[in-house]
């Protein structure tokens, strides 16, 4: 089965969804799940299972790749009764969070539940991440050095 075929042109949206599901906190995923009026049956196809991803860097920052070291990653694939497959993966070892993320990935692909996933999970997670980044950027900006030239002796 090829999910890419199912999604077709909204690849960028799918990328955003999968990326946000990877970064949603376990609490956010659980809350959204609890808010969900009708909990779907989700059959596990693969996982949730934890393994490694080899993280690559580039020599000099932009040169050829080299293997920097590994990171833990957890992934899951589920299938809803409707036949829609959901897939999720995230850094770390939280299997329950990734299983929920896979279910939400499937629900996002179904027209009837896409708005719910967007409203209750993706939008709040996106807003939180943006706020965290903004706060960090502002805290860092406060440590920026403002150089000033010393006035020389001549009056």
């Amino acid at each position, binding site marked *: 089965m090829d*999910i890419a075929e199912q999604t077709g042109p909204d690849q960028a949206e799918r990328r955003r969804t999968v990326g946000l599901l990877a970064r949603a906190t376990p609490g956010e995923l659980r809350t959204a799940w609890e808010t969900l009026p009708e909990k779907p049956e989700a059959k596990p196809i693969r996982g949730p299972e934890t393994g*490694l991803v080899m993280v*690559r860097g*580039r020599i000099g*920052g932009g040169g050829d790749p080299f293997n920097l070291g590994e990171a*833990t990653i957890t992934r899951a694939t589920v299938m809803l009764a409707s036949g829609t497959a959901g897939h999720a993966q995230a850094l770390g070892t939280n299997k329950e969070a990734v299983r929920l993320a896979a279910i939400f990935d499937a629900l996002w692909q179904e027209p009837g539940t896409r708005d719910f996933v967007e409203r209750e999970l993706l939008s709040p997670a996106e807003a939180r991440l943006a706020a965290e980044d903004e706060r*960090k950027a502002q805290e*860092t900006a406060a*440590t920026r*050095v403002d150089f000033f030239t010393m006035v020389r002796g001549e009056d």
Partner: protein
Amino acid sequence: MYVAVKGGETAIRNAHRLLADRRRGDRTLPSVTIEQIVEQLGLAVDRVMAEASLYDRPLAALAVRQSRGDLIEAIFLLRAYRTTLPRFGTSVPIDTAKMLVERRVSATYKDLPGGQLLGPTFDYTHRLLDPSLIADTPVEEPERREATGDAVMRVADILAHEGLIESDGEFPEDHQAGDITREPMEFPMPRDLRLQSLARGDEGFLLALGYSTQRGYGRTHPFVGEIRIGEVEVEIEVPELGFSVSLGRIQVTECQMVNQFKGSAKAPPQFTRGYGLIFGQSERKAMSMSLVDRALRAEEFGEDITAPAQDEEFVISHSDNVQATGFVEHLKLPHYVDFQAELALVRKMRADIEAARNGDNPMQEAAE
């Protein structure tokens, strides 16, 4: 004569039970949590992740707790855990140019796009013990200032515009990035494998080697082009989706060392470079790595190999502290039979010399 025996099971069991007790310490004090270690001993956690070559803060914190703060033991634990997991894939190379920068300093340019961002640094502190930390006194929220949103430009790119610096580092087109966890070590070793080894190498060892280059043992005339610390996206190609997706972010420290020139009759002189990239926040290690990376490129630049830091077999073979501690520490395990052999030998040598002295004449070579 020593006869092989077995035993010690009860002693070992009780020793481990005692270890667990000492690890816990005074039961009237609260136990330190994984979250507290991640949050409050974050740089120890980062060191364990970097040298274990496994990015996972909670697991690294668990290792720190289990090892009673013995970081090399913690690194060993995390390395061992890593071997129990399958590898699902390889990431798209991280893009440090798109880093969400928490700190960025350059020692070569005062005014550079993005500015000098000090971030949470020990630099410019007075290194005075702070008694206020004995009590749990409240800590102020950080100051904030409107972020400019300016791109934090790479120093190498500034110099590259004029052709004053060598490029980032490219291999011939057919080169595949090697992996020291999958292939046996061979020398000479290409730079990608050296960088992988150095990234997991012992901070103290790399620091000492980097320092040795500054003191004249393989001088490289370094300047810190820039150091940057921050979060980058880790992306992976997902075959089921047919495109790459983000797995989340990791924090890394990058050091671009700018070193003195290399040129030839054909090519005008250019700055050369050393590169350091480390999991987590570890400026000292990233700087040391970039110094050693540059020193190890001696042959590439036709420099004389005269110093330990330029000797790749020496550096790479001894930089891994898990291997090093394993071989050094195995010496304390029972060597009773080996030692009996040595003891018998030295007794025989002494007896032979004694006999020769007494004129029994069993010939000189007996003592050899």
